[in-house]
């Protein structure tokens, strides 16, 4: 009566077990990375992703880490396979956005599981390093070209047959501001990949490689079936939306445009009409644009859909080459990953709100409010710091938006104030909700945050943020959320000065930086005297 082990056929129970096993391995890789990492951005904020891939580089499972990496991790693996295929014991490092990467601070490490003298599965870990060189500490400068943004690594063999490639590592460390921390974080990624490979080896031993690969294929087919069912539940039709990024001084606001065509269990997403690539770092490479599209449809499919390549098969995504959503070298791209990706999500939601009026929320903060700081501490050690800040979530049909929360393409934690002050010469003066910043409506948009930072040593500071000019929109009569606002005080008693959302500053000891993040849009017309609590 009992089910036969190692049988050739997988039943529904087997699939369910494998689905969670794959996801658990990806999650365990993430835990190994976090627990052995050195920089606050990885160990406290979990700004990383880990995933498993089949022999073609298609995603088998991805940990619930960063949505913005959904579509771009497989491109890293495919670039590694094409340029520098990993042999047994090898690990391939890359960060080139034009060769499988996203933006330069995201270093991706790829390794293969070898079985019977051929690679059958791949693991990859990607972590945001808080500095990879370039013109500014934190490697998120206001740049025209990618060469200003830091060291660019096409796929290269950093671990060869189990041995760290010291020559290559020396080149890498010579090009960054905080070499000790980079070395530690890179080794933590090695630890993550080894953890993933070890678990997969154990699984192969116990269950047989054939069964595992079959399970991976079956799970992708399952996700594809589920996604098609979801798409069939959306009314057929063509839905359009337009929005603009914040303008650069003296330039018109760059236009984002999308057309979503839903028909017969398929979705065509076309970004024709979007502005050409920009002279600043808000350009996205195509894999980021795909990630944003995947994210939106993943949300519509429900929380229990296995995250794998099958789910994306019914989506046909067209991005005009050379536009700001499919930038070409040598465009700068640092903010495409963290800023433009958020705006693509809101754009798509705006289009779909016409198809699914009872499900789609108003615009959320639409930015990640990236702050990088760098300098030399009193004891002579260099430091770099990177953080993204939460804001207001758009109101939903039926509920207020959440306040002070990361939305859509990121879910990275804050750096605890106590960890931040332990590691860096800064002191927080205030960290709270920005009351009244959410858009009014039948359901209110969530409030943004206020973070006030006192600088205790001379630093170079770069802020990359959106939604400083164009506010997050409300839906169906709901009011817009308040746009973000950034101010500095150059010394005690000095006047507060508003600075643009994308700016590089030299701040002296004693100056204070105050960042107010955008609120979410409201939903529905406010009804007098009928406010719910």
């Amino acid at each position, binding site marked *: 009566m009992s089910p036969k082990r190692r049988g050739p056929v997988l039943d529904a129970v087997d699939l369910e077990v494998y689905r969670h096993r794959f996801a658990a391995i990806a999650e365990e890789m993430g835990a190994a990375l976090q627990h052995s*990492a050195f920089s606050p951005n990885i160990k406290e904020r979990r700004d990383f992703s880990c995933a498993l891939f089949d022999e073609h580089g298609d995603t088998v499972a991805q940990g619930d880490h960063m*949505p913005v990496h959904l579509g771009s991790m497989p491109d890293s693996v495919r670039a590694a396979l094409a340029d520098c295929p990993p042999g047994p014991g090898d690990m391939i490092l890359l960060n080139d956005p034009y060769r499988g990467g996203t933006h330069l601070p995201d270093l991706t490490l790829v390794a293969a599981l070898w079985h019977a003298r051929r690679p059958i599965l791949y693991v990859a870990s990607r972590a945001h390093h808080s500095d990879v060189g370039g013109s500014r500490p934190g490697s998120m400068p206001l740049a025209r070209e990618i060469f200003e943004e830091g060291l660019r690594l096409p796929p290269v063999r950093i671990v060869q047959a189990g041995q760290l490639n010291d020559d290559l590592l020396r080149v890498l460390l010579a090009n960054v501001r905080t070499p000790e921390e980079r070395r530690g974080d890179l080794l933590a990624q*090695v630890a993550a990949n080894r953890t993933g490979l070890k678990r997969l080896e154990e699984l192969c031993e116990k269950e047989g490689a054939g069964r595992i690969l079959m399970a991976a294929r079956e799970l992708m087919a399952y996700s594809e079936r589920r996604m098609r069912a979801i798409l069939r539940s959306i009314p057929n039709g063509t839905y359009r939306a337009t929005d603009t990024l914040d303008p650069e001084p003296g330039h018109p606001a760059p236009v984002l445009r999308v057309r979503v065509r839903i028909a017969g269990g398929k979705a065509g997403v076309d970004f024709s009409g979007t502005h050409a690539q920009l002279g600043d770092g808000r350009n996205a490479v195509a894999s980021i644009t795909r990630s944003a599209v995947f994210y939106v449809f993943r949300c519509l499919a429900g929380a229990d859909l296995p995250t794998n390549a099958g789910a994306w098969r019914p989506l046909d995504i067209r991005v005009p080459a050379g536009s700001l959503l499919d930038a070409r070298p040598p465009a700068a791209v640092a903010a495409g990953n963290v800023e433009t990706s958020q705006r693509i999500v809101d754009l798509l939601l705006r289009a779909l709100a016409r198809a699914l009026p009872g499900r789609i929320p108003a615009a959320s903060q639409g930015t990640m409010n990236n702050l990088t700081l760098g300098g030399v501490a009193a004891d002579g050690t260099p430091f770099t710091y990177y953080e993204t800040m939460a804001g207001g979530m758009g109101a*939903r049909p039926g509920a207020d938006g*959440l306040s002070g929360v*990361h939305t859509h393409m990121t879910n990275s934690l804050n750096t605890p104030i106590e960890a931040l002050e332990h590691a860096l010469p800064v002191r927080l003066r205030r*960290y709270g*909700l920005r009351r009244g910043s959410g858009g009014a409506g039948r359901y209110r948009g969530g409030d943004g945050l206020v973070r006030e930072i006192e600088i205790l040593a001379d630093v170079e500071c770069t802020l990359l943020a959106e939604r400083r000019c164009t506010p997050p929109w409300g839906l169906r009569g709901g009011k817009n959320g308040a746009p973000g606002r950034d101010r500095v005080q150059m010394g005690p008693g000095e006047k507060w000065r508003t600075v643009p959302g994308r700016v590089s500053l030299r701040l002296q000891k004693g100056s204070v930086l105050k960042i107010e993040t955008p609120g979410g849009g409201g939903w529905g017309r406010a009804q007098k005297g009928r406010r719910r609590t």
Partner: protein
Amino acid sequence: MQRTPHHGRAGIDTGGTFTDVVIEERGRLVCVKIPSTSPDPSRAVAAGLAALGRRPQEIVHGTTVATNALLERRGARTALVTTEGFEDVIAIGRQTRPSLYDLDVNRPPPLVPARLRLGVRERCDARGRPIRRPSLAELGRCAARLKRSGVRSVAICFLHSYASATNERLAARKLGGSAPFICTSSGILPEHREFERFSTTVLSAYLTPVLHDYLQSLGRRNLARVLRILRSDGTTLGARAASREAAGSLLSGPAGGVIASAELGHRLRTQKLLTLDMGGTSTDVCLLDGEPPLRRRWQVGGWPVALPSLAIDTVGAGGGSIAHVDAGGILRVGPQSAGADPGPICWGRGNDLTVTDAHLFLGRLDAGTFASQGLPLYTERVHKQLTRLARRLHVTPERAAEGVLKVVEAEMERALRRISVEQGHDPRHYSLVAFGGAGGLHAVSLARRLGCRRVLIPPSPGTFSALGLLLSRPSVERSATVLGHVHTASAARPIMVRLEREARSALRSERHRTHLHIERHADLRYRGQSHELSLPFDSRSEERFHAEHHRRFGICDPNHPVEWVAVRVRAWLSPTRLRSLSPSRPQREPDAKQRRSGATPSRLSCWDERWRRTRVVSRESIRRTSTLRGPAIILEYGATTVLPPGARARLGREGVLEVKP
């Protein structure tokens, strides 16, 4: 009764529906199960002891008082006093959303509303050096505001208080008169990361008055010489110490069953167990691989608790869960429970149809089960209500009753999957241990859904958790943060000696019983990391650290400097050994004799909408050599086990009923 001398030890487990008592006296176990009392659960505790006619030397108590108050948000009115500018830390959390791909995601509102979060101008830096002391005038104004607002409890949470508690202590002294309960974050959890520390402290402040009131009323009843409380980590603490800090006792209720299951597994030499503890109000599940698993960070009701606890998950579904038809015409069960009062319809007072009523309707419960606990059954009322439910659903009453069971089992199946499959453990390799009053009613059906090959029903499953309380061990942990001033094992040794002395003296009153064990650990990390590894403390701790780092993460770097973060000493006493895990019947049980003879041979029960003749046997009548085939109903004191058609059961070692689903 007051004149009887104190004898033996009692394990008392208070659940939402029943209060279970197991007493061990000279190696013999006796037990009783009586309905819980609300709002004062201590009445049932006293009644249970009275029913057994015992005055124990010691009571070990498991209670859900604190957890229930949190889930129902019935904690004390609490204020937060914190560093000015950081009043919203507990509202922002870590700025994350709990699920990633979910447009309808929500977070629970903070336990302290914005107007009761007061800022004080004070500040320390990351090394604990004072930048600004709180002024006495400001603290005075703060105290007046607290008094006016009528709060019962205050959490004092200042930035960097793990490094220097001076400001928090000063504030606690000055605010002492403004509310009966004051908790400081440095007292509850002296660890860095403000949100986790603040949140754990606020939770504790919110719940401590509730636990304190309860333990006071229990203490006034003067039931035993010593009263100990089971903590979330499976160790016990004296009642007075436990009532000062509620956050450590949040899993006091369900921990007993896990300890008993671990002991059972040990005796049966079975490592891999999934536990299912289903009572009247909720169901607790845990995955064991030998020792009960501990975790340091977990969540309850959406709130992080950074204190060690057994890895137990709870779902709000039990025998008393109420079935209803929702607005969309769909059958729902729970999360509301009829509890002990009014209880299921079949007890005669309630009007809401529960899971227990569905079992009764389907013929799977026997009047004898409840009669032995002094409860007559009201079968006609159940029929009437169930027929009404069936009409609303447009199905037969049989299908409606089976539907209620299917819905509640789906919820439990999800809970079991979350801790097994979703962590990468295949439930087919695990045995399902089912206990609690209702565990045996659902165990076989759940085992089939999950693919478990074996179900284990311990002896007297209805009081198994209370038995676990007798197996728990008194324990204390003392730790010291040494970051920055200790760099070698020899420098840490004098601190270790001091901690050990403190730990020993904290357990001195218990020493007469058993052997004292001491464990010494050091928490080390590479300089620059944030997560420590805990290693046995000795002169080779650093070498062990490199090796352990390599084992866990596949890398190590013996040339990189190692930081000593904390040293800790855990002292514990061996748990009392029990000769057997089988309690004998309570003396007052009315129909024990009749049931031992197996006088009710069969009855009709319903399976897949078909009424079938079903054997009814008492557990005592099952012989070691025979196999019992389903459909059958196995009765015993305080619990019923059902074998659906196709299942087979036999009696194994330790009096355990082994079922092949």
